[in-house]
């Protein structure tokens, strides 16, 4: 039987300034009928570009410069725009990374769902609505009869992602491209979506290309895995074979990423004064209470990881500590002294002691300022240095974050990689010579290899400078790697807290248990096992509970 999709020696280029530079340099891809191929690699590897090219589609500023894409005997390189349009949505469908951004905010879910079947003449509207409700039920969406009649902003992220999968299924396509469909989701939600996608793909015998940077996820979903690195194929092999015997060094390095592990430091003595105490903090945005009676301590030189799903109040806690959001009740103490609630009332020295590093280094750095200006500003503000001494201090900070001052001093953030930008964010925090740094999801926008580099850097700086960290994250692998203590938050409350080893050893609080068991493992049978343990019923309840 001929394969469903056959890509030969495809070359794709993107334009930056006036030049075309390669994104994909001659990759082959073959997909059999009913097969799921995992496409993995770091950001910039060209996964999404390749996935879209499989649909005969390129984004603005991108072109296919060579090779062929043949879908079920139809050459998409020579097909007319009209021929391609008749395939898209009907025989080839797409599920995007962010369902929240990929659903049109102006229309109800159902109207967007029926658009492809009605426009392609597959079904009329009422048939398609009925079918949508069936698909919603199959994907275990709560209230399948009604959920389609809501607007996207009225539905949670995990539910939207399943609704988008339903939409992709609307014409029963032969091929679906899943482009990082769970990357933006919490681990507990991710499981529901993964299970739903896998079931429905199985049920209809749909072929799929599953794009992700998360190996553990791809291990659950794919029959075969193809590894990409900067536009080149590294290797392709059936999933189990690839997991057990990766051939190439790059693949092995990807597999080994989660190896970084920092032993827990000994518990602080009974007379140790916490550097920061959050005591019974309650906070609200307007009428909506977002934090309730949150308390925890951070002792000098230690790392406290604050974990929880999105909306659990992790970042709000950071806003209260830094004085950006004055709390309704409770207090924040620094070395036993209560800090004024609002940052405006804090002294320069109080401000200096607590610094922040943000998730998106891209938006946290002024794109118009050179690296030296970005780091120099807090140095001047807090220590009053100027001229040659300022420059020397900036160079010293750059060396601390392992960037060569001569090379990087005068560059703009746009000329740096994601990991380098995050390092500059760290240097800017260090410039104030703080005692405590709040790291808000600092590695979640980064590839695993790069993220590991950042974690190692933070660990080294902690040892050298005696820093304390409050580490906000939803990624439990990161927690395992660097935390000394863990605070688990849910819906604005602290559910459980304690030393890392204790937290990762059963018995846990049921919610901690749910979080821990939801982290995908690099074992192709992990999802099956977990679903069997939890039972489909429990999943359904979890989905409804998250309304």
């Amino acid at each position, binding site marked *: 039987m001929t394969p469903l999709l056959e890509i030969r020696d495809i070359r794709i280029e993107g334009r930056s300034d006036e030049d075309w530079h390669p994104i994909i340099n001659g990759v082959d891809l073959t997909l059999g009928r009913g097969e799921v191929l995992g496409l993995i690699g770091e950001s910039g590897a060209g996964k999404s570009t390749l996935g879209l090219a499989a649909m005969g589609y390129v984004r603005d500023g991108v072109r296919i410069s060579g090779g062929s894409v043949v879908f079920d005997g139809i050459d998409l390189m020579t097909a007319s725009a009209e021929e391609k349009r008749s395939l898209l949505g009907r025989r080839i469908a797409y599920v*995007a990374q962010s369902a929240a*951004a990929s659903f049109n905010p102006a229309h109800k879910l159902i109207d967007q769902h029926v658009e492809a079947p009605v426009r392609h003449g597959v079904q009329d509207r009422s048939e398609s609505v009925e079918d949508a409700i069936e698909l919603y039920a199959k994907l275990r969406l709560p209230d399948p009869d009604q959920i389609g009649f809501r607007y996207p902003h009225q539905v949670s992220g995990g539910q939207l992602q399943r609704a988008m999968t339903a939409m992709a299924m609307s014409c029963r396509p032969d091929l679906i491209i899943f482009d990082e469909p769970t990357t933006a989701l919490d681990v507990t939600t991710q499981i529901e979506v993964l299970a739903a996608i896998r079931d429905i793909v199985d049920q209809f015998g749909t072929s799929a290309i599953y794009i992700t940077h998360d190996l553990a996820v791809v291990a659950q979903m794919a029959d075969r895995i193809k590894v990409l690195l900067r536009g080149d194929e590294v290797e392709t092999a059936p999933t189990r074979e690839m997991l057990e015997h990766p051939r190439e060094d790059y693949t092995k390095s990807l597999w080994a990423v989660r190896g970084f592990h920092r032993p827990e430091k000994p518990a602080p003595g009974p007379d140790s004064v916490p550097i920061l105490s959050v005591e019974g903090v309650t906070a609200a945005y307007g009428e909506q209470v977002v934090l309730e009676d949150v308390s925890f301590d951070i002792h000098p030189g230690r790392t406290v990881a604050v974990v929880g799903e999105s909306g659990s109040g992790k970042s709000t806690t950071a806003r209260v500590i830094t004085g950006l959001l004055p709390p309704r009740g409770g207090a924040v103490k620094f070395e036993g002294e209560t800090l004024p609630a609002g940052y405006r009332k804090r002294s320069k020295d109080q401000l200096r002691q607590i610094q922040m590093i943000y998730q998106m280094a891209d938006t946290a750095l002024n794109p118009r300022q050179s690296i030296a200006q970005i780091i120099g500003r807090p140095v001047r503000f807090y220590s009053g240095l100027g001229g040659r001494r300022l420059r020397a201090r900036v160079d010293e900070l750059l060396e601390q974050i392992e960037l060569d001052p001569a090379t990087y001093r005068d560059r703009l953030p746009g000329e740096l990689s994601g990991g380098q930008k995050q390092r500059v964010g760290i240097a800017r925090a260090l410039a104030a010579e703080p005692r405590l740094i709040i790291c808000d999801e600092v590695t979640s926008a980064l590839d695993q290899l790069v993220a590991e580099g950042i974690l190692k850097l933070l660990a080294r700086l902690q040892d050298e400078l005696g820093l304390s960290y409050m580490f906000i994250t939803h990624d439990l692998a990161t927690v395992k790697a660097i935390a000394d203590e863990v605070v688990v938050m849910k819906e604005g409350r602290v559910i459980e807290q304690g030393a890392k080893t204790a937290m990762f050893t059963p018995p846990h609080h049921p919610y901690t248990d749910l979080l821990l068991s939801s982290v995908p493992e690099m074992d192709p049978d992990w999802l099956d096992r977990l679903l069997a343990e939890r039972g489909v019923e429990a999943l359904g309840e979890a989905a409804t509970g998250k309304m």
Partner: protein
Amino acid sequence: MGSVIRIVLQRLALGLLTLLIVSAVIFGAVNLLPGDFAQAVLGQSATPEAVAAIRTQLGLDQSLPVRYAQWLWDAARGDLGVSFAQANFASFTGRVDPSATVLAQIAPRFANTMFLAGVTAAIAVPLAVGLGILAALWRDTAFDKGANIATLSSISSPEFFVAYILILLFAVVNPVLPSLSNIFPGMSFGERLEKTLLPALTLTLVVTAHMMRMTRAAILNLMAQPYIEMARLKGMRPLRVILRHALPNALAPIVNVVALNLAYLVTGVVVVEVVFVYPGIGQLFVDSVKLRDIPVVQACCLIFAAAYILLNLTADILSILSNPRLRHLK
């Protein structure tokens, strides 16, 4: 829906407050005009006693705040006062000739202005939005560039120049339309429309560019959104992608620019009125300033301000209604 009503009421209250502030500014500014009506009407050789007498009759001898309070109170009850120019001072008895009230002066002129604005809007808004959509659809093609150049050149030319060119083309070279727009009460709608067409076309050429370019920009701004890509990947045609997926999300900025241009049509078309001898409110306004006919000037300003505020308010409300996030809360 309740929250939308609340927002609308809030905006309405803010609009009224703005109008109140504007009315004070108008009153203050008009009274800063050099010279006064009594002096203007009696001429250079008037005796100081005669001037003072008229000032007393008109209440001009009272202090500014008192006059403002009086005027505001009357205006709120719908009485905009008596036109100085129309009142008969020689036999001023305190009784007001009904045709001399500001309202009687302004009402027919205002109706004419609204008619002209309405005809212009009926042509210009669909034209501009349609051109904007097509320009976005055929971005960077000859059509897009042509539409941009044409609308930009028409907005860059002075209004009177555009007006005379149109007169030359449609009244002189091909005499199909009248060059004078002297409309009067009792005319049939068809006749009115015919007389109004040339000034309306002139104004269309003036206002189309803004609206068209904003429509194009607002749509193109959205073309990089993931939901637009999703619509394309569902195999939708380019025109449908724009009309169904981009336009509903681009309405807010478009509606605002349309409102701004409509407000201009109500308040700022003196030059076009003069060229076509169109009896609109703009000419009345200019004449009244010349005559220091303060009650009429104030009333015109108040109407202009109210038109701006009302149209912007409408734009605000339409923007809110076009956003399902505000219409349907979680």
